[in-house]
């Protein structure tokens, strides 16, 4: 009963493989912002194709819903494309999610890479039973740290390594094992009740957030608690939370105290300040993969 098993990993990349950059959500301010991403992938021996509409601009979006959907569907269906690297997040993935046909993907899975708004895709892929990659997008490579880049490479080429981070004094210590899934807190929360809702049983939940007031963070955590997510987990990894504490309603603490309050009845480990989210040191996380956490008073080890 308690066998925790990996979701299906798409084939790892190898030199000579082709990947495609597509933009399913917000538009790129300039087409050139993804140049460092292209150069990086090429330095790894990959061929990089660009979705037809990757540089399109339609209101807030990288093209109309139809254009973004067409690009994503093409990248998903073409068997010569081994991975889809989302150009950036923003907002818009959920507008096309229900129109995407995953039937070819389930026969020939491939890595789908991104974070933030791309969480909608991660949730849906998790629901379908596949692994996916929460990592820096091409627009972020120019300023990404070596660790962000190395972990992205390692995850894509099947060479995941243990990550060791210093222990935050608020961490709830312990060891645990579970399948990693999560992403942007607001997007995770918005998937509740939908066909893309995550089954949280025996999962280790990763969350990150940007630009939300603390009261909203509190509300979203209570939503997850009330929908039954938090009491099914095996652990929580908290990434970067960026917000303006000055303009937030006073809460008598930070997002860390808010999270600890929401899980006060739980005994599983909670790890704060994991380097992932809207930061340059956005360490790659393989969603759908079984991981172990060993959180002690000195260091925290996360083993993929």
């Amino acid at each position, binding site marked *: 009963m308690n066998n925790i098993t990996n979701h299906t990993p798409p084939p790892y990349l190898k030199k000579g493989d082709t990947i495609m950059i597509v933009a399913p959500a917000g538009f790129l301010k300039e087409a050139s912002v993804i140049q460092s991403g292209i150069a990086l992938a090429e330095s790894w021996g990959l061929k990089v194709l660009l979705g037809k509409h990757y540089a399109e601009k339609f209101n807030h979006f990288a093209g109309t819903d139809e254009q973004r959907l067409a690009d994503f569907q093409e990248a998903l269906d073409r068997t010569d494309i081994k991975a889809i690297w989302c150009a950036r997040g923003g907002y818009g993935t959920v507008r096309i999610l229900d129109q995407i046909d995953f039937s070819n993907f389930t026969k020939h899975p491939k890595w789908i890479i991104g974070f933030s708004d791309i969480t909608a895709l991660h949730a849906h892929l998790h629901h379908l039973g596949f692994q996916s990659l929460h990592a820096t997008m091409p627009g972020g490579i120019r300023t990404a740290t070596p660790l962000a880049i190395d972990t992205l490479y390692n995850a894509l080429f099947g060479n995941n390594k243990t990550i060791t981070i210093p222990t935050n004094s608020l961490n709830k210590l312990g060891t645990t094992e579970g399948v990693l899934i999560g992403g942007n807190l607001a997007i995770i929360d*918005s998937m509740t009740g939908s066909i893309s809702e995550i089954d949280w049983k025996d999962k280790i939940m990763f969350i990150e957030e940007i630009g939300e007031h603390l009261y909203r963070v509190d509300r979203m955590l209570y939503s997850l608690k009330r929908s039954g997510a938090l009491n099914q987990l095996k652990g929580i990894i908290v990434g970067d939370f960026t917000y303006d504490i000055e303009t937030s309603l006073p809460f008598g603490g930070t997002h860390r105290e808010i999270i600890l309050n929401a899980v006060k009845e739980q005994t599983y480990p909670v790890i704060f300040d994991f380097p992932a989210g809207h930061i340059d040191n956005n360490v790659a996380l393989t969603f759908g993969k079984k991981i172990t956490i060993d959180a002690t008073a000195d260091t925290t080890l996360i083993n993929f």
Partner: protein
Amino acid sequence: MNSTLIFIKMNTTFKTLSLLLLAVVFVQCGSQKNAAIKKFPPNLKKGDTIIVLSPASNLSDSTVLDNGIQLMKEWGLQVIKAPHVFAKDFTFAGTDAQRIQDLQMAFDNKNVKAIMCGRGGYGLNRIIDELDFTTYKKNPKWFVGYSDITVLHNEFNVLRIPSIHATMLAAITKATPEARNTLYNALFGIPYTIQTPTSVENKLGEAKGELVGGNLSLIDAMTGSKSELDTKGKILFLEEVDEPVYKVDSMIRSLMRSGAFEGIKGLIVGDFSLKESKEDFGYTYKQVILEALKKYNFPIYFDFPAGHIKDNRALIFGKTVHLKVNKEQSELRFD
């Protein structure tokens, strides 16, 4: 779906029995959130006592309720202040425990004939599961508030208890005469109709159904919890404040993907006082709503006077209302 497969393997007698059992289960599940409301709170009458409390954020100081309490006295009501109505705990009107204590006392005290909130803000989500509705369900009373109070409105609707979405006591004397009069009518059981010129974006049509709803963010936040609205066959009201348009788009789609718009009879869109976002979204909230819901045929009434505005007219949730969205005029009738 799976049960169909199992049935194929069963013998006929057992199959019939199981189907019957299944039907009973379905009826019971449906009945909880969607059965007709049997018991309405008694209408107020002169001399009744009401209580004012703050279940979410704190009031700035102890004078902000003076004008509202004076108005209630003019309506012939006696007003008592809950023990922690002016309490402060960071952003909240007292600790979770203090706010629970005030609400529970107001629910259970037989001398209290109606409950009015001082203000909204944030905080009901944190305490809703700690409240005991046993006595309140047997002896419901009118509960008045909006915005964060949507959490309670939704829970009440699930429990089949009517409640009033209206302006709160700290703001009531700044509200329009229409906002005050509709609240008076709702509390004292006087039928009223809200009528406005039809907005060009409206989708015409008529509907009759039970009114439910509240603040979009909070309705969305209730999804997946025991307070989630069953909107089927009902008329849904939405209002929003301080969110950027892209968030409205995200929340409308989130509600749509959770099935909230399936089978509703009409949509009433109140005030949406939205926040500018860094990037121009390119659509207005009305376009967002019309585009997301284009596959549905129910009438949509935009610019309805309710929400975070002075002209915040009272809405009786749980009541069967008549909605008319005509070419010239649109109206919502509470009989």
